[in-house]
């Protein structure tokens, strides 16, 4: 069979022009959702107002919420306008223009729904938080508990921060060392490959909590010289040991994701294996591993909370002390807020780095 046989002789039927889709139905759905969202927002705002006995800030928040919930009515109105235009144009036989009007109207209607659902979700969350006469807010978000606990807790949080920073720097170095050991070539490299493999397997298997207990309590017993070390340092060592095993895997995946042709090109120029690793493979791998590396670092930062088990005064430790003192969980929520505040900017920063790198390399 030749290519000519593939062509059908039958006359192709002419194209059927696509008809404008309906708008009014979608616009009405948008209207219903928008009104529901508005009702919820009003309920939440009233609840907020009465619960705070008319305090300015909560009342202001309620007003803003209602204003936000009003917004979806605007695109809804536009959707109805387009719907009318669609019918007019269709009547005049202007198919293309009518189709465009319909598409724009449906767009507006879905925008209205999206914003209305968003406002509804926020309102419902507020209503839940203020349910049972504000029981939830009292338990988790009691402002006066926060005020009392804040000074000590922020000081304790400083311990989490520097332990995380020290551990992260050590993990970057030690993890890379492990990764390179795992990729050593030849028969001579076999023992080191095996040792690195066993290390990674063992320390990924042991829960971080167990490593912390063993290191913080065990090391000073085994090595009396370490008895004077602050236990937070030992905690940093324990976290380094655990996370190096994970980060070594991240590096290794990054290194093996570089196409072999890069290595071939470098070797063909006379660069040694070590030079190829240092100048060609590692720099490219590091860029690629930033996102997974950051995930591990965020985990590490959160796992500094585990040091509380070894009696190290860090933020969770401090928050539980305050919790039992005040019979209220708000200090623990405050600890959670601390972690949120330091984590989110890091995620944004790394996104920025990735974008900048991509832009630089493609000349934008």
């Amino acid at each position, binding site marked *: 069979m030749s290519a000519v046989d593939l062509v059908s002789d039958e006359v192709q039927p002419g194209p059927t022009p696509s008809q404008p889709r309906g708008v009014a139905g979608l616009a009405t759905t948008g209207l219903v959702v928008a009104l529901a969202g508005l009702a919820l927002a009003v309920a939440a705002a009233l609840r907020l107002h009465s619960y705070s006995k008319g305090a300015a800030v909560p009342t202001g928040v309620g007003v803003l919420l209602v204003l936000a919930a009003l917004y979806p009515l605007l695109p809804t109105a536009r959707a109805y306008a387009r719907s009318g235009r669609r019918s007019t144009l269709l009547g005049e036989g202007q198919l293309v223009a009518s189709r465009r009007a319909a598409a724009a109207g449906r767009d507006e209607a879905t925008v209205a729904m999206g914003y209305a659902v968003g406002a509804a979700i926020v309102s419902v969350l507020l209503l839940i938080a203020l349910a049972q006469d504000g029981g939830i807010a009292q338990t988790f978000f009691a402002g006066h508990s926060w005020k009392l606990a804040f000074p000590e807790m922020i000081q304790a949080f400083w311990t989490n921060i520097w332990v995380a920073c020290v551990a992260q720097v050590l993990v970057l170095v030690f993890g890379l060392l492990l990764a390179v050991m795992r990729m050593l070539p030849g028969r001579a490299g076999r023992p080191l490959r095996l040792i690195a493999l066993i290390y990674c397997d063992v320390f990924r298997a042991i829960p971080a909590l167990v490593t912390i207990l063993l290191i913080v309590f065990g090391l000073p017993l085994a090595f009396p010289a370490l008895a004077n070390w602050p236990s937070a340092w030992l905690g940093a060592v324990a976290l380094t040991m655990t996370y190096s095993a994970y980060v070594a895997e991240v590096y290794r995946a990054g290194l093996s994701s570089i196409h072999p042709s890069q290595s071939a090109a470098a*070797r*063909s*120029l*006379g660069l040694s294996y070590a030079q190829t690793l240092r100048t060609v493979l590692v720099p490219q791998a590091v860029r690629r591993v930033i996102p997974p590396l950051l995930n591990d670092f965020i985990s590490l930062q959160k796992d500094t909370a585990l040091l509380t088990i070894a009696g190290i005064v860090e933020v969770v430790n401090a928050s539980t002390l305050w919790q039992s003192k005040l019979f209220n969980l708000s200090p623990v929520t405050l600890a959670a807020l601390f972690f949120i505040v330091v984590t989110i900017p890091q995620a944004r920063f790394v996104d920025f780095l990735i974008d900048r790198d991509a832009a630089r*390399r493609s000349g934008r």
Partner: protein
Amino acid sequence: MSFLQIDDVHKAYGQHEVLKGVSLDVERHEVVCLIGASGSGKSTLLRCVNGLEEINGGEIRIEGDTVTGAGVDLNALRRDVGIVFQSYNLFPHMSVLENVTLAPIRVGGVSKAEAEERAMGLLGSVNMQDKARSYPDMLSGGQQQRVAIVRALATQPRVLLLDEITAALDPELVGDVLEIVRELARGGLTMLLATHEMGFAKEVASQVCFLDAGSILERGPAQQIFEEPREERTQQFLSRVVKSGRL
């Protein structure tokens, strides 16, 4: 004694025998073309000459010195033997200038200033000096391949291997790259190249080898191979190339 002697080279990947006893001599200042269907082993042969693949039998000699087998300083060999790949393989995290100066600085022990000066000269000769600070992703395929050639030349190799260096290029970019190779041939650089550009091969090659399923089936002057091939398989291959519009 020939400059480059490929002597009964065998190469297999597992059970799959890719080179089945290839012998080929390249004289100094000579340009030899390898032609043959995709998968016939052209790239493998070039990679063996550069020491990127270990061979399973036979020997490769450069100026009489065996450069295959145990104990050979491959890094030293690769200073004498440059290779340019079909897919350019530039280092994407380095600027053009850094790509070109990497080996002279790290391997050749040349100072950074001197390496950059020489690199700029070489880039100038292929009309790429104003792209020295650009990154490979910002360049067209033809520009990238010209940089790759310069990168290979920067180590001052005595023989250059070219592996279908125009195969990945848009047709209108092929000419510029071939012009550089032509220039190098005129300058007397010894080259062994795999190519599908038959017209070009006719023009620069003193010897053309037709590689078929891992062995050289026919060899001779370009004129003879292209116009009166003796072997039936060579004729079949060439007529396929003609049909594809490459001759």
